[in-house]
């Protein structure tokens, strides 16, 4: 019988203590460390080299940060979210940031133990009832991202520059003086950018760029034009 090494990332103290006690009654798991805050998860993992990191629902907002910091480790532990939200969107977010296993709030300790073993073996774990919505969501997001990227491609170089400045947080007046053009011209550029991107506000435009992670792409367009 193999014993899997797990790290319990749980900020709530009673829960942490109770879960460590409960998990330690299972011979197939060994809790090698705990972490009570998102930034310490990777540090603890580096020190104790667990195979699986169990992620508390209290870290729901920090899954991305935690998973990113864990992915830098070698060997990189696998991750299992427990007591997680049964919203398809939450699952989708978790999968996208690299969570390997996902157990919803209705799942008990025994399933958590089995889940940890499965994830340690390299299996991905998603509640079967949520698999449909998950796949649809993933395809949908991909399609939307592809659509947005195509719209970004339609921009002229000048429009890219303007969008780049919008992302930097410049207003119309500032964009005009930066590009040595009249405020009305800047306004026209902005309007055209919004229309081409099919968004209704500057904020939406900026958020679209952020979602596509296309900031650098725009930055390069801007730099090329700097004398």
């Amino acid at each position: 019988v193999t014993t899997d090494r797990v790290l319990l990332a749980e900020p709530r103290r009673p829960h942490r203590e109770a879960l460590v006690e409960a998990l330690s009654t299972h011979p197939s798991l060994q809790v090698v460390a705990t972490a009570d805050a998102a930034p310490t998860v990777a540090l603890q993992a580096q020190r104790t080299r667990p195979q699986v990191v169990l992620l508390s629902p209290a870290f729901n907002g920090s899954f991305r940060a935690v998973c990113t910091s864990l992915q830098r480790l070698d060997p990189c532990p696998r991750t299992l979210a427990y007591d997680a939200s049964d919203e398809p969107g939450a699952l989708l977010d978790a999968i996208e940031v690299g969570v390997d296993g996902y157990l919803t709030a209705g799942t008990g300790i025994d399933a958590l133990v089995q889940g940890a073993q499965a994830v340690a073996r390299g299996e991905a774990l998603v509640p079967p009832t949520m698999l449909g919505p998950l796949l649809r969501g993933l395809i949908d997001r991909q399609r939307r991202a592809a659509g947005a990227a195509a719209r970004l491609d339609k921009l002229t170089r000048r429009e890219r520059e303007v969008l780049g400045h919008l992302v930097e947080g410049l207003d119309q007046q500032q964009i005009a003086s930066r590009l040595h053009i009249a405020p009305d011209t800047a306004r026209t550029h902005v309007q055209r950018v919004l229309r081409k991107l099919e968004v209704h506000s500057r904020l939406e435009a900026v958020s679209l760029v952020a979602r596509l992670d296309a900031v650098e792409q725009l930055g390069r367009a801007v730099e090329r034009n700097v004398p």
Partner: protein
Amino acid sequence: MVEATDGRLRVAVVSRHRASAEALVSACERRGLAAGIARPHDLKLTEPTVVLVDGTDGTSIAGLFGFPDPVDAAPVVVLTTELPDRTRQAGRRWLHVDMAMDDLVSALTSSAERDATPSASSAGAELEAGLTSRERDVLVELVQQGDVGKVAVRLGISELTVRSHLRNLFPKLRVNSRAEAAAWALRHGLASAAREGSV
């Protein structure tokens, strides 16, 4: 006080987080309490001595204020990441989620016991003295923190406000110093309540 037939306190754990709830139940059991998972609507059936509501399970604090009263005798204790101001208004007790499991179990025990013996209950004395709920909070924190500055941080108000609350409550308790006020609180059973307010 409703007790398990073997004399143990009965704790009903209410949480939407199943794995955590199961772990909390076994942790309570391991510390000598009888415990089980309950859903809000079947609390009456389980006849608990004390109800532990996991306020960190995604249930909104607002939702907890409308939480059904399970059994008249059983106090409801809510685990939370923050200590809301309106503690007493809601008639609930709040425990900060930074608390160790051992302390949680003693707090549950003292909650249940305090309700069981109304004569020793702190509620009577503080009402008689005419304390406002905020003055009570300040007093409880004063005993716990032992420092006006820490009380202010704890309650999220300024030191001046804490001092002003203290000035107002001194005549009500007929005391002249913080030490005397703290002693009054201990004498009237607010000290065990202070454990709840603490981390």
